[in-house]
């Protein structure tokens, strides 16, 4: 059974210019122990998807889905209390800007302690106190913080970004979750820190044997350990599947463009080659195209594209496109 | 017990305490009475003042006089003097004093002897004899005695024996006994004065008073309250209440509301029409014909009010009928003269100053008063028998005066400040009045308009007219009422011509009280008395 099973998840909100569908029938499956990367430009709805799963979406937004299952249980049918029993215990989340996502008025120790399961510490009051403290130190060690005594007493604003993200991770894994959702954990970081965090995440995924849903902006930032990858554009799923397959033989023009863009950034281009970026800009919520939302920017688009494409499957990958690339020779 | 449970217990008991249905009126409220007075007393010695507020708070409560005036019998009755005779053709009065009368026993003074002639001599010499050690305490100023000329009339007060006193007059005076029966001629304790003198605390005599009256002084907090306790060994029938409180409430509306909520048992100067419209059966409004007059006095020592034509013109400018209607709600009579029509000396005078703005304008022009002439109207800040709302009256007059081209400004201070500044003659004109201390018509003339009263500060017009004084002197020198009536008539004629003040109204005197209050009577003369006060609370 899939740990997370999402079928046709749709999120709609009332904007100043009418109702907008910010996530359009997105499906995604995640197996236990799997590292899954969700790639999309800003505004693609990847964070919304994560927030919908974890249940911190703005309550005024409408969330509908054919299926939003966690371990075989329907998340949408749960009471808030039941939901909370899963959120933060079985699944945890870390965010892009760790400093903003830590309470500025609690110390690191307080915030980690809060996340430690009540059952982990027992005994008298003093015992519990000492227990908690050692647990906090342990957690800090696990995320690679050595000088735990100083860090524990610190307030978030006293931490560097890397340390703060490590603390966030420590809070997230305190409950030994089955799934860690990492929402662009390294996007705004400097390269060395970025590397540290990425390695930490990969290591934890293995050592804690937990699934990771990593959300990134570009293909290049996905974890080396990633088994599966999904690409979102403007609230629509473009393609998903086995990492190897998708990256090597993309079916969707969008995937293709994303891969080329990251190559452009990382590898030297041959002279005279065409710039592999998509023309135009990401549409605003107000002027969302109908049908396949990539349509206006897609070099291969045809009339048909005003109708949303159905899912198609090919080996280890699924894609939503009328005119897929790299089709095997018939 | 844990901290939380302590808090919970405290909170519940607090709630229970404040919500518990009151089954019984607590004892202090059963045998106590609250009178909501309209202002602060200036002192606790009525000898030193003329203000009714001070008299109310002191004279009948703390002190007794040698003789009292019985308004029903229209005669003088015995008080601290059991009987008295006029000797030497009315130039010497002999008073036999009551025995076994005790002074108040308080935490600041314990009397060792009964009241006797020494106390009478001391009390009279305080205001009579400028060499007396206590004369200058508190300023050495005794306006009532100065205004009525009593300090000139009495030449000597002699102790004949411990219980007999002689008072010797310079000449016979028909108003002497009447003045003696007023609220001002009270008896102080010589023993207390001596004690204070030896402690070098003389000024305390008027701040922590000792008298023989039905109540003794407990505490005074300026602007808030005066507390009294019953004098247990009072020499005649005393009150049935234990405690008396004067709750000082200058605002008439608040006084009325407090009566309604039961925070006051008795209030003076009620807003009669308001109370009647409330129509509550537990509140009684009592009224009494009272010899009083409200008037608008011009400061005749300040130009242009030194010119009789200006005073007359301004008198024509005021619509007094409108004042009677809106300020008194018709519960008063338009005053033709300062002497109320109920007085035996009153004669039918003709109303001279009918409302006539045309004439007023013309006269002002003749007197050389320019248009837009600016003047002040001082309005008393408290309610009085004769004037329920002087400020509002002033507002009415303001618009009347604007009509004739006079720009009037209304001035009002706190009552004691007001009186102090008034006696320094800082005013242009003032809306004030007078109510009689005794039944003698002289009480309306000499304290208000004689030259002596200018010096004593109770002549609000600062008007000194020798011819007028002459007439008054003649009137008190004779005991022939017909002749006196004639003299007062001519005095009024002179007044009407000179117009140092414009009489406005003679008002009814009102008092409102809860119906369970008994024995608080409205005397026609002088201040309120709680000597027989009691409460009959409905059975629970």
């Amino acid at each position, binding site marked *: 059974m899939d740990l997370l099973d999402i079928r046709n998840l749709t999120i709609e909100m009332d904007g100043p210019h009418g109702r907008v569908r910010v996530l359009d029938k997105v499906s995604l499956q995640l197996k236990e122990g799997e590292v899954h990367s969700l790639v999309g430009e800003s505004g693609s709805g990847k964070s919304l998807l994560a927030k919908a799963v974890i249940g911190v979406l703005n309550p005024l937004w409408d969330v509908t889905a054919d299926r939003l299952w966690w371990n075989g249980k329907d998340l949408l049918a749960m009471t808030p209390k039941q939901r909370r029993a899963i959120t933060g215990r079985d699944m945890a*989340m870390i965010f892009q800007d760790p400093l903003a996502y830590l309470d500025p*008025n*609690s110390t690191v120790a307080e915030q980690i302690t809060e996340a430690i399961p009540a059952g982990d510490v027992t005994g008298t009051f003093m015992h519990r106190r000492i227990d908690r403290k050692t647990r906090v130190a342990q957690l800090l060690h696990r995320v690679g913080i050595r000088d735990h005594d100083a860090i524990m007493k610190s307030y978030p604003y006293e931490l560097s970004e890397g340390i703060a993200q490590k603390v966030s991770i420590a809070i997230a894994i305190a409950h030994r979750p089955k799934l860690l959702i990492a929402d662009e954990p390294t996007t705004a970081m400097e390269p060395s820190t970025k590397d540290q965090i990425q390695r930490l995440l990969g290591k934890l995924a293995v050592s804690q044997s937990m699934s990771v849903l990593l959300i990134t902006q570009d293909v290049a930032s996905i974890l080396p350990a990633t088994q599966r990858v999904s690409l979102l554009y403007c609230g629509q799923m473009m393609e998903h599947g086995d990492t190897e397959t998708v990256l090597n033989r993309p079916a969707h023009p969008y995937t293709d463009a994303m891969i080329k863009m990251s190559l452009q950034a990382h590898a030297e281009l041959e002279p005279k080659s065409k710039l592999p970026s998509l023309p135009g800009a990401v549409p605003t919520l107000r002027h969302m195209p109908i049908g396949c939302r990539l349509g206006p920017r897609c070099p291969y688009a045809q009339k048909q594209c005003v109708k949303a494409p159905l899912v198609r499957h090919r080996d280890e990958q699924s894609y939503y496109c009328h005119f897929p690339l790299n089709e095997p020779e018939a | 017990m844990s901290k939380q449970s302590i808090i919970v217990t405290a909170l519940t008991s607090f709630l229970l305490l404040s919500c518990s249905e009151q089954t019984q009126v607590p004892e202090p409220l059963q045998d106590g009475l609250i009178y909501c007075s309209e202002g602060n007393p200036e002192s606790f010695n009525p000898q030193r003042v003329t203000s009714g507020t001070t008299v109310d708070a002191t004279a009948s409560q703390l002190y007794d006089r040698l003789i009292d005036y019985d308004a029903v019998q229209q005669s003088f009755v015995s008080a601290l003097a059991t009987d008295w005779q006029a000797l030497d053709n009315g130039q010497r009065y002999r008073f036999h004093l009551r025995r076994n009368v005790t002074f108040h026993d308080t935490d600041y003074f314990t009397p060792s002897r009964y009241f006797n002639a020494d106390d009478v001599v001391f009390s009279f010499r305080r205001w009579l004899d400028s060499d007396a050690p206590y004369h200058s305490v508190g300023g050495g100023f005794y306006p009532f005695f100065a205004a009525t000329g009593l300090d000139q009339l009495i030449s000597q007060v002699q102790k004949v024996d411990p219980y007999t006193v002689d008072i010797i007059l310079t000449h016979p005076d028909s108003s002497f006994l009447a003045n003696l029966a007023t609220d001002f001629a009270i008896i102080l304790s010589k023993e207390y004065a001596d004690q204070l003198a030896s402690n070098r605390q003389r000024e305390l005599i008027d701040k922590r008073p000792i008298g023989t009256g039905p109540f003794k002084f407990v505490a005074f907090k300026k602007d808030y309250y005066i507390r009294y306790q019953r004098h247990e060994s009072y020499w005649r029938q005393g009150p049935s209440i234990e405690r008396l409180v004067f709750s000082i409430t200058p605002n008439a509306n608040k006084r009325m509301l407090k009566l309604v909520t039961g925070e006051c048992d008795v209030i003076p100067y009620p807003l009669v029409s308001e109370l009647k419209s409330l129509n509550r059966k537990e509140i009684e409004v009592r009224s009494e014909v009272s010899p009083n007059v409200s008037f608008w006095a011009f400061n005749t020592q300040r130009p242009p009010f030194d010119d009789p034509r200006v005073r007359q013109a301004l008198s024509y400018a005021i619509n007094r009928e409108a004042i009677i209607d809106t300020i008194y709600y018709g519960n008063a009579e338009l005053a033709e003269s300062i002497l109320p029509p109920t007085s035996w000396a009153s004669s039918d005078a003709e109303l001279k100053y009918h409302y006539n703005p045309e004439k007023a304008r013309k006269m002002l022009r003749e007197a050389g008063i320019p248009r837009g002439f600016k003047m002040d109207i001082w309005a008393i800040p408290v309610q009085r028998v004769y004037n329920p709302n002087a400020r509002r009256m002033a507002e009415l007059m303001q618009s009347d005066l604007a009509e004739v081209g006079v720009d009037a400004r209304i001035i009002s201070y706190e009552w004691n400040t007001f009186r102090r500044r008034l006696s320094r003659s800082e005013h242009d004109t003032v809306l004030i009045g007078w109510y009689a201390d005794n039944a003698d018509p002289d009480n309306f003339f000499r304290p208000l308009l004689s030259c002596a009263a200018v010096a004593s500060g109770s002549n609000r017009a600062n008007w000194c007219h020798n011819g007028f004084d002459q007439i008054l002197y003649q009137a008190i020198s004779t005991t022939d009422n017909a002749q006196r009536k004639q003299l007062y008539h001519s005095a009024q004629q002179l007044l009407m011509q000179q117009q140092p003040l414009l009489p406005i109204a003679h008002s009814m005197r009102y008092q409102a009280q809860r119906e369970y209050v008994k024995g608080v009577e409205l005397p026609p003369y002088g201040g309120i008395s709680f000597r027989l006060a009691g409460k009959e609370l409905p059975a629970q």
Partner: protein
Amino acid sequence: MTRYLMTRLFYFFLALLVLSVVTFSLNWLFPGDPLTNMSGIRDGQAAYNATLESRAFDSTVIQQYVNYLAHITQFDWGLSLSTGNDVWQDAATYLVVSAELVLLSFALAVLIGLPLGMLAANYFRHNLDKFILTSAMTGYSIPVFWLAQLLILLFAVQIEWLPITGQINPLYAIDSITGSVIIDILLSDSQYKLAALQDALLHLVLPVLTLSSLPSMLLLRITRNQTIEVLQKPYVKAARARGLSQKRLLFKHALPNVLQDVLPQMTFIFGLMMANLVIVEHIFNWPGAGAWLLKAIIERDYPIIQMVLFTLMGLILVLNLLVEIYRGWRFPMTREERYGGY
């Protein structure tokens, strides 16, 4: 923290000093003789010349100010011009009376404003929020003196639940020792303490209600807006993503952060109460410093005006200091010195 504390104290005393310069110069600005305004001793009184010397009026203004400062640090504010009593001696009970009223009202304002504000924020955009917000706006806009009158008419006159004026029915004969009626009752040897206490509490209801109406509504609005803002902060979302209950979220994470920004407003709210104190005490005949100040202004009793104004304003400064110190200690992020100040 020490450095933070030192700078706060420095600015506090500097402000106090400026305040004393202001009250000192008031003596010249008030009409009449500066010496009389300062000491309450009139020209012509026997002590006048001696005072002239002791107040250094034969010397420079600087000397006079130093002298004035020496006097007021010993609580010597001179004599009242209208009663001749020592101002500070009279002031003691007046100030305690006001303190009782203000503290109770402040407590009530906080008890109403904070929870209701958080409640409204919790139900942001629901009808409950709109209802609370509208009532808060109404309560905030009613002139205090009108509200007092309406409350009197309703609670005292129409349904006769509550008395109108004073601290307690004077028949209970509770001597005013401290000024605080509750303490006075407990200190007194009256046999009817319980009944007196009940009476005093009933007397407290209307003034406290009136005095706390505006501050509580203001506090409510500030708290609500601040809470809404905080609830939209990332760290609250993160906390929610950790599966914390709404209750824990509100009290453990939102409340401290709301307080951090609401606390500085407390001084302002306290100041507003000081201003309204004058009106409330006047209406309900409370023997407090506000009513005393008003009377002094009408009677032009300058020593009293000076003393009461200095004390009221000084108290606001003291509260400001306390709030700053607490805030710096509880919310170290606000110690701006870490960033070098602005």
